[in-house]
């Protein structure tokens, strides 16, 4: 038997039964053990109840994807069994809460009853402890040193007193004991514990992104709840007021973005967060942001569309809208984060770009990423660079021409960026406007004004693109096959590239962080010089592929999935292999 390096544990059952808390506890515990960890979960369509699953993948090396197959399935009930065994790998381990049901013996996997409910209720007299028992069960299987889960429970429950800590400890131990007594031959699940990584934190993509906005200096948020973007709003609602910042729940998305533009005009670093339907509704006001040249960040936590679509499902379907949506010629910047850690840094980049180039920046995440938890290296705040908008200096400045109507808010400059003022600054008075305007901001409709101001707004983009954050790269730079992807799909692509390399196929992959304007200096060489370029996206029409095709080449190969779920690594591996085979 070969040593294994990672394992996928799925906990499944009725939503509200503690599936999510079991998973989170487990993820946190294994992270303390030095393991790498990445989670995946889905919520049911029903508000309460319905089937839920939480999947924890852990390993002794960095992980990038949620895992294609389940190694260990912990089914809390019959429905969980029915819906999830299709994902359990042949020869995997099925644990089921024997209080609920007894599955037939199929021979396709190993199956062991675990009387979770019984242990919690009857043995421990602590019904709520079922989740902790489950954590004990799981961690004993792959051999997590007990101390990590114990310390986690202590940290977590300390405030509630020693009694609570102890009963949880007992629940944990009961789970461990049960496994040790009833599940022999656990070697096949055992992973050598890697060294402890003390500087690690476990958080979700939405938490990481929200923290990033805090680190970037965000001090104004207005938003309207929508899945899966509400997490950002809820995070900031509790944190921003501690820094004197403000969170407003607006009456709709038009109001959200308009409030942000107002706050930005008044000097704040403003953001909103939304998902597809809200993005569509913000298009008009985003045009105003471009026209009035106001910094603002809009988080688009993509979900499956169109229309209300599949609100809890995954898709990368908003790129066209983010990059090209809005009437008229309306340039703005689109940044996409590829991972939980990356979300922190891209949030900072988004703010910095917005401030530097005085324009809206769309920060794209997606359902998988917002909800994914990962053990990442704690960010070093001292290394975070925060950029502020270029302010005009009152007094003695050539930017004020009283004869021409005052402050030259939209003075033509080489980069297109003009120093701006903030209400309260003497001599900086101007009227921000969505009408075409001259350099003082006064409405003017002559051809020269419109041409030169259009050029100014696009000139900023030409400079912004040079500040594009570096792309994610993975694989063999000399490979003839290249994959371009974006967002959380990069994780699946990275693992596919590695798996292909193991099979002797060299592949190179890139995921740009700035998606619009296209960072030519990062992409041209890659896209033009690979023999074959495959663009991998979770959408139907290949939105990034089309943007690349328009610029670079028409023979891009597309790999798309559009079922509301992310790629499996195997899908990508198989596709690349068959593409290569085709050529022979």
């Amino acid at each position, binding site marked *: 038997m070969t040593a294994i390096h990672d394992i996928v544990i799925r906990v499944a059952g009725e939503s509200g039964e503690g599936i999510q808390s079991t998973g989170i506890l487990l993820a946190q515990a294994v992270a303390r053990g030095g393991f790498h960890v990445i989670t995946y979960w889905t919520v049911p369509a029903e508000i309460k109840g319905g089937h839920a699953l939480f999947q924890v993948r852990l390993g002794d090396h960095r992980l990038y994807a949620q895992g294609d197959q389940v190694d260990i399935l912990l089914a809390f009930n019959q429905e969980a069994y029915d819906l999830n065994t299709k994902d359990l790998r042949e020869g995997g381990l099925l644990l089921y809460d024997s209080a609920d049901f007894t599955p037939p013996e199929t021979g396709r996997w190993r199956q062991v009853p675990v009387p979770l409910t019984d242990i919690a209720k009857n043995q421990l007299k602590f019904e709520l402890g079922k989740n902790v028992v489950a954590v004990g069960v799981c961690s004993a299987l792959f051999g997590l040193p007990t101390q990590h889960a114990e310390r986690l429970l202590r940290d977590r429950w300390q405030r509630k007193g020693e009694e609570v800590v102890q009963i949880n400890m007992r629940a944990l131990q009961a789970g461990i004991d049960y496994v040790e007594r009833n599940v022999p031959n656990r070697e096949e699940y055992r992973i050598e514990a890697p060294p402890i990584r003390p500087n690690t934190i476990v958080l979700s993509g939405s938490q990481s992104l929200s923290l990033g906005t805090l680190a970037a200096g965000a001090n104004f948020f207005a938003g309207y709840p929508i899945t899966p973007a509400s997490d950002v709003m809820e995070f900031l609602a509790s944190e921003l007021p*501690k820094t004197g910042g403000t969170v407003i729940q*607006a009456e709709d998305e038009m109001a959200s973005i308009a409030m942000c533009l107002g706050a930005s005009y*008044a000097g704040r670093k403003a953001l909103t967060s939304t998902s597809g339907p809200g993005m569509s509704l913000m298009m008009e006001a985003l045009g105003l942001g471009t026209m009035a040249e106001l910094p603002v960040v809009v988080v688009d936590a993509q979900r499956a569309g169109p229309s209300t679509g599949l609100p809890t499902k995954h898709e990368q379907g908003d790129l066209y809208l983010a990059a090209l949506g809005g009437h008229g010629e309306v340039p703005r910047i689109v940044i996409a984060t590829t991972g939980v850690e990356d979300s922190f840094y891209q949030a900072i980049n988004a703010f910095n770009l917005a401030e530097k180039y005085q324009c809206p920046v769309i920060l794209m995440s997606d359902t998988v990423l917002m909800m994914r938890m990962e053990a990442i290296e704690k960010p070093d705040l001292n290394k975070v660079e925060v950029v502020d908008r270029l302010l005009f200096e009152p007094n003695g400045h050539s930017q004020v021409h009283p004869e021409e109507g005052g402050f030259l808010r939209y003075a033509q400059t080489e980069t297109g960026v003009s120093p701006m003022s903030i*209400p*309260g600054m003497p001599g900086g008075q101007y*009227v921000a406007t*969505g009408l075409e305007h001259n350099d003082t901001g006064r409405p003017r409709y002559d051809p020269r004004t419109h041409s030169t101001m259009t050029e100014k707004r696009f000139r900023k983009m030409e400079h912004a693109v040079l500040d594009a954050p570096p792309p994610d790269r993975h694989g063999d730079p000399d490979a003839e096959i290249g994959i371009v992807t974006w967002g959380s799909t990069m994780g699946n692509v990275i693992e596919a590239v590695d798996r292909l390399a193991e099979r002797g196929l060299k592949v190179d992959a890139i995921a740009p962080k700035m998606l619009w304007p296209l960072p030519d200096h990062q992409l041209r060489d890659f896209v033009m010089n690979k023999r074959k370029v495959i663009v991998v996206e979770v959408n139907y029409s290949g939105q990034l592929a089309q943007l690349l095709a328009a610029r670079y080449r028409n023979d891009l190969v597309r790999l798309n999935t559009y079922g509301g779920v992310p790629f499996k690594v195997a899908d990508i591996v198989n596709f690349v292999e068959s593409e290569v085979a085709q050529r022979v």
Partner: protein
Amino acid sequence: MSDLAEGRPAELTIDEYKSGEKPTWCPGCGDFGVLNAVYNALLAKGYNSKDVVCISGIGCSSRLPYFMSTYGFHSIHGRAMPIATGIKVGNPELKVLAFGGDGDAFAIGAGHFVHAVRRNLDLTYVIMDNAIYGLTKGQTSPTSMVGFQTKTTPSGSIDRPLNPLMLAITAGATFVARAFSGKPKELADLIVKGIDHKGFAVIDVFSPCPTFNKVNTFKAYREEVASVPANHDPSDKVAALGLANSEHPLYTGVIYEDTGVPTYEESLSKLHVGGEENRRKVIDGMLARYS
């Protein structure tokens, strides 16, 4: 012209508040009177133009900020309220005035109006109500009367008009007034009162559009308007609704005022448990929580 960079002149005149941009309105437009009243109100307050922000949506009336030497935001149709909210919350020190037309405020902006009103920001919203869409050359508006003929309602409008004052009062406005561009002194005075009111002040101004509205003219209003009775108690909501509801006469003056409601900025600032200096601490705290 104001010498903006050097600070305020010793003796203020309304010129301090003029931008030098020539108003684009038609001759005889009611909005001229409103603009003048705004100049006079600011003069009365003695504000420094750098501390004032004039916000508007889109419409003839929404052009007003261009004619002011203050800061301004001529935004998009219907969104003056959320823009103003962002600005006032963004910097509560600013004196914020919002302007717009009846279409801007009560058609595309109706939802925002209701919510801005209930938040009770400390700002003054002057609506130039001409019962028509001026800028788009004369269509029916939410305050147009039943039977009113325009290009979009050639056989007369069938929609019953909204009553801006009643709408404002029931949405929770704390200062509601009506004025008439043809009574400029009262108008300026009401704007000052609106500014002085700590909270959201709505001033619906009859501001005729001689070009496209041949019914709601200066003359017609002059015959219909009457000042609020001297004995009216603006804190009496039911009485206020009664005055607001009256069609003959149409009352001008302070219809309703409630001074007991905290402003939105005050309530927001009460939520602050620290300032910018805490940022690092807050982030570190969160990072520790995820460890």
